[in-house]
């Protein structure tokens, strides 16, 4: 699969906005080794975004899009929130679902795609905020895991409802005071990664998006495991710098502070035995592919 799939009508090529011209000429579709290093080389990986300047969600978005192993056959399902302002700029099929319904929509979609395109790999990836995943959509989130639906759920955890001005979310820290939650949170941050493991997710990771190579690895693993085995869940800390009173340049440091040992976003993963086996197989194949490529390159240079 590659750029061959879709072409602009030649007679109307010149009037298409530059993003679409770039998409058909230089998108990374079909490139086996696509990853975060491709960011900045094509407009497809979100040249401009519509979030607040410096918002870590924008970094996370770019890393995730660059890391999808099969973008032309991937459908992302989003929900209302700051993320939904970015989806219109995304060159991957996506559905904007009613707030909280994202995992129910993704369940039906994944099953329909399997029936409609038998034998073809079709990945489904949910991407929603913490309010959508853990509060209003918790029922749909959990039920999809119980049912072992084969898709990946990614939660952008900014620990509050950012898009509506800062209300309390289940993933907010205890005691935190937000603009529209002046009393302060009275109970602990919900332990969704643990709940995900107990609910049947085969690959669960909790981390920040401070390191693009780590995000790439985690996203790829989650998609591969969901494709073959069952539900997977990633919780990324994408702090809302606007709500916690940080400047545009301070998002990265905020994430680095939050991922220190014993902090709430210290790297944490749960992998089922079946997933471990699959990931080991994939890693071995990748090693072989790289060795072959190296050998070929050496042959060319000799």
């Amino acid at each position: 699969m590659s750029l061959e799939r879709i072409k602009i009508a030649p007679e109307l090529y010149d009037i298409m906005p530059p993003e679409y011209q770039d998409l058909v000429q230089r998108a990374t579709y079909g490139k086996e080794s696509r990853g975060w290093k491709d960011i900045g080389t094509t407009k497809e990986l979100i040249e401009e975004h519509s979030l607040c300047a410096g918002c870590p969600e924008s970094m996370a978005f770019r890393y995730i899009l660059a890391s999808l192993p099969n973008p032309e056959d991937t459908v992302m399902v989003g929900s209302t929130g700051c993320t939904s302002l970015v989806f219109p700029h995304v060159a991957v099929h996506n559905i904007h679902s009613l707030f909280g319904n994202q995992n129910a929509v993704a369940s039906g979609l994944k099953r329909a795609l399997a029936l409609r395109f038998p034998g073809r790999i079709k990945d489904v990836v949910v991407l929603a905020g913490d309010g959508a995943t853990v509060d209003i959509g918790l029922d749909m989130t959990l039920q999809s895991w119980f049912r072992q639906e084969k898709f990946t759920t990614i939660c952008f955890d900014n620990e509050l409802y950012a898009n509506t001005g800062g209300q309390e979310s289940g993933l907010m820290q205890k005691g935190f005071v937000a603009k529209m939650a002046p009393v302060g949170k009275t109970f602990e941050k919900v332990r969704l990664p643990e709940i995900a493991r107990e609910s049947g997710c085969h690959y669960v990771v909790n981390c920040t998006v401070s390191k693009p190579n780590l995000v790439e690895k985690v996203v790829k693993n989650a998609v591969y495991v969901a494709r073959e085995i069952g539900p997977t869940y990633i919780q990324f800390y994408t702090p809302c710098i606007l709500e916690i009173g940080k400047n545009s340049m301070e998002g990265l440091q905020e994430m680095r502070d939050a991922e220190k040992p014993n902090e709430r976003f210290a790297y944490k993963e749960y992998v089922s035995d079946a997933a471990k086996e699959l990931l080991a197989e994939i890693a071995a194949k990748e090693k072989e592919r790289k060795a072959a490529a190296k050998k070929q390159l050496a042959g060319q240079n000799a």
Partner: protein
Amino acid sequence: MATSSYKVLPGPEHFLPPAAAAMGIRLPNPGEAHIHGEIVPEEKAMEVAAKQFLMAKVPTIFPGPLVLWAWNEKAAQKAKAVRHLFETIKECVTPSQRPMLIPMPDYRPKYPKINPEIEINPNHPNLTIWHNKIDTCMFVGVHCHQANLSLKIIRGGTSCYTIAMCAQAGHEDAMLSFRDATAEKILKLAEWIKKLKGTVGPSQ
């Protein structure tokens, strides 16, 4: 034959104009078209649409995804015909007129804003129409739902004359609508424009 006293006329009608269908406007049968909601033979609509383009200060074509992308041979032929129609309009108008060809590449609302000089978005088509002072436009290759939405917004907030070159059963919400559009039908409209060149022009 009029079926309703309601007329689909250039606006601005008001913030939320009614769907023309809800006002009793019905769609043409094959071989027919409608003008302001009145069913007419297709040839009559060809003549009126051609005159509209020749009289407009900024006659504009808005091609949508069904013709912008070469989905299949039929789509590619339609794109060719759209380009030909645009070139014909350019040849047939006076230097004071400013024909435009502006794509509707995406239906998703675009944040924080679109660039109205190079694209039109169905969720706020008025921005492109206002910015470029478009007074006559034709939709072609836009999926039904998005065309209906967009045509209604245009009627609500602008005084632009709307034409739909629809590949299905036509659009009640356009001021003039063809149906069963093919590349040949688009080329025929270009012929009509050539034929009527010089007979009408923009009002001063």
